């Protein structure tokens, strides 16, 4: 139970740093979502060839030297950009922060595939002579790399690690950061998720072999959750990191607060490697609601996970029906229709994209729904055009992943 907690057990979001295929800061990202602007484009990846992806275009040299970019990983670079942006956005005077009390908790879907593929491709040119395998391989591929690079860049000496949680990772990172603040392990958390997944051919080839890789003549129309003509996932990269603080600390320094994490839950399906389980997804959402002491009809916006695979979309809509079937005023949207599936960053980016609804009262839509799949029919679906909601007090953000990992977070307007 979180909602009735003392102020030093209440966790709030005070800074947001992000890069998405359609925006490199919250204002631009939000504007793109309200304007219906996709970030998906044509993309080439070795071995697979021409495909589609959501690629980010943030300035890598804003917070890193060229040598650091060369030595590190794309996920590390994404994390460094987002972490610095989040801290700047929080208004905290970083030079006065005791960085031994800062924790870095970064959700990742996977890490190391990109770097391993690069090295194998490199030694292939040397007839697989492993003597030319890079000494940078291990520091690049250790699972804590994206979080560790942030600590190196920002001189943070508090705890850091990644949370491997498939495509629930963005929410999982946020939850981990909040829990560490509650436990007193840190006084400020940089938490969320990052992804470099478009740099690995394996993820494209894997989805293609699974019959789950999207294709479309018009890249901006390729990611179409809930639409009958969907044909799979658009893989994207990105990052979404939050500065989290205890409410007591944030209010003491007069911080601007984006919202409070009043409920969260993570559950497992224990049923299939890839197929989702609506019973467990519904249980996850209900658990988050119970911890927040909220009923479903008090949620104003549900940010769905749906990835534009047939089974994933239908199963999540089944789960939503179980939880929000009697909540006709709850609006439901999907951000992947704009940016594709940002994997480890998906959860935090999709949450961030919705948070400004607390201020502007608008629910951005799911775009690219020309023929709604009747199996995805839900009363609150906001399709193709943004909808004025008016007062928005609670947002629930879903993120699910392979091996049956489910997450839901609920953010309250402060």
């Amino acid at each position, binding site marked *: 139970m979180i909602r009735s907690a003392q102020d030093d057990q209440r966790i709030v979001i005070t800074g947001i740093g992000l890069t998405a295929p359609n925006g490199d800061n919250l204002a631009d990202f939000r504007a793109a979502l309200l304007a219906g602007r996709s970030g998906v484009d044509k993309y080439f990846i070795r071995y697979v060839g021409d495909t589609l992806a959501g690629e980010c275009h943030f300035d890598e040299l804003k917070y890193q030297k060229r*040598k650091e970019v*060369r030595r590190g990983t794309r996920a590390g670079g994404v994390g460094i950009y987002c972490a610095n942006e989040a801290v700047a956005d929080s208004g905290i005077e970083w030079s006065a922060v005791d960085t031994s009390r800062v924790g870095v908790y970064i959700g990742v879907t996977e890490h190391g595939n990109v770097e391993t593929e690069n090295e194998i491709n490199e030694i292939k040119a040397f007839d697989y002579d492993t*003597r*030319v395998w*890079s*000494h940078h391989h291990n520091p690049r591929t250790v699972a804590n790399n994206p979080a560790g690079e942030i600590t190196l860049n920002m001189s943070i000496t508090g705890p850091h690690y990644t949370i491997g949680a498939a495509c629930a990772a963005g929410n999982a990172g946020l939850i981990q950061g909040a829990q560490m603040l509650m436990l007193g392990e840190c006084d400020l958390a940089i938490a969320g998720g990052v992804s470099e997944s478009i740099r690995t051919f394996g993820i494209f080839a894997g989805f293609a072999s699974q019959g789950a890789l999207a294709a479309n003549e018009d890249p901006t129309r390729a990611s179409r959750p809930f639409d009958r003509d969907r044909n799979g996932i658009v893989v994207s990269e990105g990052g979404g990191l939050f500065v989290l603080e205890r409410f007591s600390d944030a209010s003491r320094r007069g911080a601007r607060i984006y919202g409070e994490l009043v409920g969260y839950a993570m559950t497992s399906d224990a049923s299939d490697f890839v197929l989702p389980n609506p019973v467990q997804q519904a249980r996850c959402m209900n658990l988050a609601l119970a911890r927040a002491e909220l009923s479903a009809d008090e949620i104003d916006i549900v940010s769905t996970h749906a990835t534009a695979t047939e089974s994933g979309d239908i199963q999540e809509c089944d789960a939503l029906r179980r939880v929000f079937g009697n909540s006709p005023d709850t609006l439901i949207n999907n951000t992947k229709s704009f940016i594709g599936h940002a994997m480890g960053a998906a959860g935090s980016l999709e949450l961030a994209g919705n948070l400004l609804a607390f201020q502007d009262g608008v629910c951005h839509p799911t775009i690219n729904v020309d023929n709604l799949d009747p199996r995805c029919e839900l009363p609150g679906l906001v399709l193709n055009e943004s909808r004025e909601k008016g007062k928005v007090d609670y947002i629930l953000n879903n993120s699910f992943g392979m091996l049956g990992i489910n997450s839901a977070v609920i953010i309250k307007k402060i």
Partner: protein
Amino acid sequence: MTGEEIKEEILDILEAIAPDEDLTQIDDAVNFREQMELDSMDFLDIVMELRKRHRIQVPEDDYLQLANMNSTVTFLLPLMKDIQKV
């Protein structure tokens, strides 16, 4: 390769390894680490690039020979004298 060509090759490698550095003012007699930000991983990069580009193996005991430009060229000259500059 001549000594001058080896120097050009080392500068080319350094440009890739230390892209933020101004290499035009390098003093050939002064240790690289005193003139630019280079750590042990960077020196391994120099060793790796020599291996990749020219199939030259620098034994670990000889890494100290790569401390500055003059010592590097002196060390590499006998190893690279038969290699044509591309």
